[in-house]
């Protein structure tokens, strides 16, 4: 009677053993999860740290813009009276589309503010888009030739005409004849400017002006410096142009 096979006592023993095994497994699983969570947090934290460090380096490199004072360059075009309350330096490439947007939005407003005496603007054309073709450098050379031969006022007009009729960044590009035409339209004497524009007589200065801008920390065009600080306030360049004019008017 008392010794049937598979007694309740034996079954209980097996059940207790199973329960113990299940507990051990659950405990091991808990430990495994905790360990994986810890490792994930460490590796995830390290990856996050790499991103944060890279952003830090990236933002620091953008701060290297040397304060550019109006009139501090030999290759600028100054519009307005020295000593005006606000100072603006604009680095631009005649081929850069955003520079065209900036000029379209702010060109007239800045000219009006300069005439009213509230701002003095130092335009510094540079050639950084040489990878698209010779227009970038040719146009700055022509600008310097016109400035040299016909003076600041004609050079400003020439500058405005080039932006008003800007070629696409990828071309096709107008030739030097076209640059001469624009110079004449701006008020320069053709005989005076044609040789310099065709022969690239100021190419060394184009290179020097561009190098000077790079040394000043200019990373692209347009770079607008307002009272020594880079000005990029706006969600588009149309908006930046409007804000700039509003700021200095």
């Amino acid at each position: 009677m008392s010794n049937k096979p598979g007694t309740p006592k034996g079954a209980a023993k097996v059940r207790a053993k199973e329960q113990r095994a299940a507990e051990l497994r659950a405990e091991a699983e808990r430990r495994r999860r905790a360990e994986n969570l810890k490792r994930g947090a460490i590796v995830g934290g390290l990856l996050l740290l790499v991103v944060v460090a890279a952003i830090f380096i990236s933002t620091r490199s953008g701060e290297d813009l040397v304060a550019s004072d109006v009139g501090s360059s030999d290759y600028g075009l100054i519009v307005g009276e020295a000593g005006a309350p606000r100072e603006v330096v604009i680095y631009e490439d005649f081929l850069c589309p955003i520079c065209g947007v900036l000029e379209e939005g702010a060109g007239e407003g800045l000219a009006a503010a300069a005439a009213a005496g509230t701002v003095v603007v130092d335009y510094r054309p540079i050639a950084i888009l040489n990878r698209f073709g010779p227009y970038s450098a040719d146009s700055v050379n022509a600008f310097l030739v016109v400035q040299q031969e016909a003076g600041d006022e004609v050079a400003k007009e020439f500058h405005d005409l080039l932006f008003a009729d800007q070629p696409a960044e990828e071309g096709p590009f107008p030739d030097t004849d076209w640059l001469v035409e624009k110079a004449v339209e701006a008020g320069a004497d053709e005989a005076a400017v044609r040789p310099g524009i065709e022969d690239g007589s100021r190419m060394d200065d184009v290179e020097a002006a561009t190098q000077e801008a790079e040394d000043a920390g200019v990373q692209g065009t347009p770079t607008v410096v307002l009272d020594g600080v880079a000005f990029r306030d706006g969600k588009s360049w149309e908006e930046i142009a409007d804000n700039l004019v509003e700021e200095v008017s």
Partner: protein
Amino acid sequence: MAHPLSDLRRGSTPAWLGLAARLIVGGVMIAAGLIKLPDPAASIESVRAFELVPASLVEPIGHLLPPLEVVVGLALVLGLMTRGAAVISAVLLVAFIIAIASAWARGLEIDCGCFGDGGANPDAASQYPWEIARDVGLLALSVFLARLRSSRLALDSLLFRPPVVPEPTPALDDLNEGSLP
């Protein structure tokens, strides 16, 4: 009853597909990030060209994207924190798709700046469909990776201990044997 992806085992076909998806999405992310990394100013202007984010966020996003893309791409290629990286990659791609579609809808003619060189682009309208198609493809791969438990040749399998496969209990064995003819 289980989701088809939930019981994948390493060595099965999806695990190899996982490796392929990691290399494709990760490779594209690394390339896109590395090209933009040396020129934060250009990256900022690419972001600004979309005219989508407030002025105060243009620069932070421009600085954030290149390193984030490189790190997420590396994580995917190495198979490190794969699912988390795939989730971030999917979120980024959704944002890119919305940005490009919105630029297209507003008639903006800009280069997406995906691989540097943002700003104006007269051919933009003809490129938007391809850019969106590419990003949708990468998004699909990212979602697949985010749902995949593990893939081949991933550092995750060294880093994390896999779950212990519960051994069948003796009681269950008895039961099974009992039910067998």
